[in-house]
């Protein structure tokens, strides 16, 4: 069970982690600035196992892999959105952050709601309702199952 942090459509990677923080040598040093321009309290409030829920086109913009990486480092269990920008989507799978497409859930939940994700079955439960998620392509599921691209290349 985790708490929902809700965002709107077209959230770009500059909003997730701004470019002035990309010179920090580690993701650990960057993560405190996640979503700084949209919700300055996010990094302090988010807890291990929480979820980010967004509308269409989450993660558009730059190719910075630091964007999914700071979310993962803060303990975000998964990002659920109506759709994702393609580079963000690929990067997330490669670092082992589940990204889940669900067209209905984002409109029916509020910031602060509790939700549960069964990744294996592709089912989300929130406010007593079950949501089915779109399945990943096999190639991506394989990488995600192994914990990311590095683990998958080292297999």
């Amino acid at each position, binding site marked *: 069970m985790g708490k929902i942090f809700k965002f709107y459509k077209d959230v770009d990677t500059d909003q997730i982690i701004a470019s002035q923080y990309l010179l920090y040598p580690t993701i650990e040093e960057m993560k405190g600035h996640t979503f700084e321009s949209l919700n300055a309290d996010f990094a302090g409030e988010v807890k291990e196992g929480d979820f980010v829920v967004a509308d269409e*086109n989450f993660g558009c913009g730059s*190719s910075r*892999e630091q964007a999914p990486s700071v979310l993962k480092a803060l303990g975000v269990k998964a990002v659920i959105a109506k759709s994702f920008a393609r*580079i963000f989507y690929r990067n997330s799978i490669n670092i082992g952050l589940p990204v889940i497409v669900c067209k209905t859930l984002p409109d029916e939940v509020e910031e602060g709601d509790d939700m549960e994700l069964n990744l294996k079955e592709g089912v989300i439960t929130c406010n007593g309702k079950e949501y089915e998620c779109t399945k990943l*392509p096999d190639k991506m599921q394989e990488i995600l199952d192994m914990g990311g*691209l590095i683990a998958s290349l*080292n297999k």
Partner: protein
Amino acid sequence: MGQTLVEKIIGNNVNKTVKPGDIVTVDVDWCMVDDIMVPFAVSKFEEMGFDKVFDPDKLVLIYDHFLPATQVDDSRHFRVGDEFAKKYGVKNVHRTEGICHQLMTEAGYVKPGQIAFGTDSHTVTYGCVGAFATGIGYTEMAGILGTGQLWLKVPETIKVVINGKLPGNVSSKDVILRIIGDLTSSGATYASLEFSGDTIDDMSIASRMTMSNMAVEAGAKCGLFAPDEKTCQYCNIEYTDDIKNLRSDEDAEFARVMTYRAENFVPVLACPSLVDNIHPVSEMAGKKVDQVFLGSCTNGRLEDLQTAAKILKGKHVKEYLKFIVTPASRKIYRQALADGTLEILSDAGAIITTPGCGLCCGRAGGILSDGEVVVATNNRNFLGRMGTSKVEIYLASPATAAATALTGFITEA
């Protein structure tokens, strides 16, 4: 059934006929790593346990985002890059020559029909010469550096056809902004955007680069132009039958076809804070502007600087306004120096900077603060991109930028 351009490029690489949705593993012709991502890509490469780069001559390292350094730790990125280049025998290192996306074709690397990946989303720019090129993260880049390969899904194609003659005050920047507005910022997600028609045939390679550069702002995986004689001249190669075949067949299947008459385009702006928030310049005319930026991998080429010089010759920009000009590469800088363009711009009050990405990505050379308004020729107007989140960024063509610099208010050229 016929094939689209992107299907042909990928099919040639994997030696079989491919169709949209196929997942294939391609041999990579070019890898580009920029200075921001160098330390991350290097550390992932080492974590993966590789002991050599698959082909050091296919890797190009380019320092541009942090150049010249503005923060105390920026130069660490150059050092890590230099050490990696020395250790693995990478010879293609550009330390001060310009912006990565300009150099990858200008310096003679990417050619028609090739496949390139870069650690920056505007890698799509190389579609201007008919190459499949797209941005990836640094972990995937590390994987390519070790293996020489990457898997990808063959994209569908959205074909954009433009015929006719563009009005005199309209450039390819206005055209691509209009198209992004029509598609929306996610309308081409996962797709190959392909530009064609006689308006496109008439465009210079520089103008085409502006359009392929911004394909990603509609979510596209690549933004392609079929290579023609002009392309081959730019790439310094022969226009062979193989290259002539690099175009979509008449009977190819497209996910969508968008058709435009060139005469119907007008100068436009992408208004705060989304690239698909497109309005005619005339609609926003009269808004006071604090700074104008002419440059970037979108519009920092010689023809862009010349367009501005034509408007500003013998005149001076508004006294309170900062007009910042950043050529996309040293080659362009020198050409603009030699033909008098930079002198005209300097006389008009321009602050001319070294080629690089600084201001476009909000790191250096003209960062703005709360309540300020900037008209800029780069590719993104995201919240906070060029300063604080209370800066208004309007994206425009070089002509609109120059006309605005002159009056201090948003002005149609």
